[in-house]
């Protein structure tokens, strides 16, 4: 999508491929494509550079509402991290804890994934790396009990930020979604208003199922923020457009690697630029 080729049939085919292969999805891709065809037929778009700017504006508008400063007003501010299996929840919590700790905030982590093998051990290493305390119980303990414990301990320590890790779960599993509801209820019981952020973690490699994930998690316990991980890979993460359009919540951060510092604030125009790279 560069330089001064002309906008011909071949060019439009390339554009169609770019839109679809970025995981924007059929609905969004063809909506944008139709707008482009309309403008081209009315000679309102002269060249590729022009067209690129037009698309960036259109997509950027949807994503601009996803770019909002994270207002942290409550103390302790409780973040509950959720998402399907393997997307990067635990790793993201480590990175987030480090960011807050560097801002001189008192952070406490809650190891409420009491199900998966070595989940608690994994988060414990991240807590050590970020230099923050972690509350944990034995494997098989009630996750809601760990969440409760963590919040109680955080209140006692006058912590600023609490981040609760939960086990990965598919949104199609009713009993596991019920478990999330219970964790949420228990947090609210321990501190009315908690959790202040329900952070849904999405993997940039995921296709259209990401939209279903977002809808179902939102329906179950309400999602207030997003993180998209693994954007250091080759996937473009186009599903974020559909998700943001649906949920109207901000993308807090993007994950761009596996070490402590690999978390960046979401920048809508950078993201759209990368779509067309």
């Amino acid at each position: 999508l560069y330089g001064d080729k002309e906008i011909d049939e071949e060019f439009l085919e390339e554009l169609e491929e770019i839109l679809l292969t970025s995981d924007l999805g059929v609905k969004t891709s063809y909506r944008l494509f139709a707008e482009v065809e309309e403008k081209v037929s009315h000679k309102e778009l002269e060249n590729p550079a022009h067209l690129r700017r037009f698309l960036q504006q259109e997509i950027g508008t949807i994503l601009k509402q996803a770019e909002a400063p994270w207002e942290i007003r409550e103390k302790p501010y409780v973040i509950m991290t959720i998402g399907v299996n393997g997307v990067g929840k635990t790793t993201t919590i480590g990175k987030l804890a480090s960011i807050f700790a560097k801002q001189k905030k008192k952070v406490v982590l809650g190891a409420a994934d009491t199900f998966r093998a070595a989940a608690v051990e994994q988060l414990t290493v991240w807590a050590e790396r970020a230099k923050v305390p972690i509350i944990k119980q034995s494997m098989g303990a009630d996750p809601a009990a760990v969440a409760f414990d963590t919040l109680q301990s955080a209140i006692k320590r006058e912590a600023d930020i609490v981040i609760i890790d939960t086990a990965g779960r598919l949104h199609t599993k009713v009993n596991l979604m019920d478990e999330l509801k219970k964790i949420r209820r228990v947090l609210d019981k321990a501190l009315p208003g908690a959790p202040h952020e329900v952070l849904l973690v999405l993997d940039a490699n995921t296709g259209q199922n990401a939209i279903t994930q977002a809808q179902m998690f939102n329906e179950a316990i309400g999602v207030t923020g997003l993180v998209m991980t693994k954007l250091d890979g080759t996937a473009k993460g186009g599903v974020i457009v559909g998700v943001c359009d649906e949920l109207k919540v901000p993308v807090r951060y993007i994950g761009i690697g596996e070490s402590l510092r690999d978390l960046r604030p979401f920048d809508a125009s950078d993201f759209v630029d990368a779509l067309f790279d």
Partner: protein
Amino acid sequence: SLSDKLDVTFKKLRGQGRLTEDNIKEALREVRMTLLEADVNFLVVKQFVKAVRERAMGSEVLQSLTPAQQFIKIVNEELTSLMGGSAVDLELNSAPPVVILMVGLQGSGKTTSSGKLALSLKKKKRRPFLVPVDVYRPAAIDQLQSLGRQIDVPVFPSTDSQDPVKISRKAVETARQQGYDTVIIDTAGRLQIDEKLMAELEKIKAAVKPREILLVADAMTGQEAVNIAKTFNDTLDITGVVLTKLDGDARGGAALSIKAVTGKPIKFVGEGEKLSALDVFHPDRMASRILG
């Protein structure tokens, strides 16, 4: 569903005894949209639709079927045969210890699938040995050791200060000495564009000559499934694929993309977090799942 949409499309063309260029144009468009919505890669969809058009053009509509039914029959057959006809099992017919190498992107389910494979081999009266070579992810070795304990399968005592190639070599030697007939090596998740880590896999392959190199891929992967699979295959010449998290509701178009670009069989599917949740791949079930 696709068959409902095709019923509508073909109803408009009553009394057609044959599938023609005109009457299948709209139907092909429906198929194309269905596959794209199911996350099948753009170029793979193009290829597939072309193949369906060629089969459909001029094909006689059987007395017992409506044009819509005939058309969907062709689509289903084309998709099922593309998915690989029938189930392909593990190649275990070589001098023990037979080595299986598990590779793939971060979080795809390699460690869990290694445990699942070990359990299924144990049930088939083999003597599996699990080898953790993920020295990067926090508690990755602990994770595999914990799974090994759950199913009473021995795990090589790797530590994260060791080198993955050296661990692999030593583990295979240990297996040979201890009489374990199948070695399952669980590698760290990696990006297919990470040259250093892809080279690490090549070194492991050269050191232990695996009989099976299984790409573990997440069923909810989108368009990029094609590039991921192609690079792993070009670099390692994989022998098969494990498609995980099929207990979700992702349509799983990645399965078609991966099969189309590598030509390698999908051997297993992961259908849950329990170590018993491994099944052989059923191409016909996958085809109808993709078509919705």
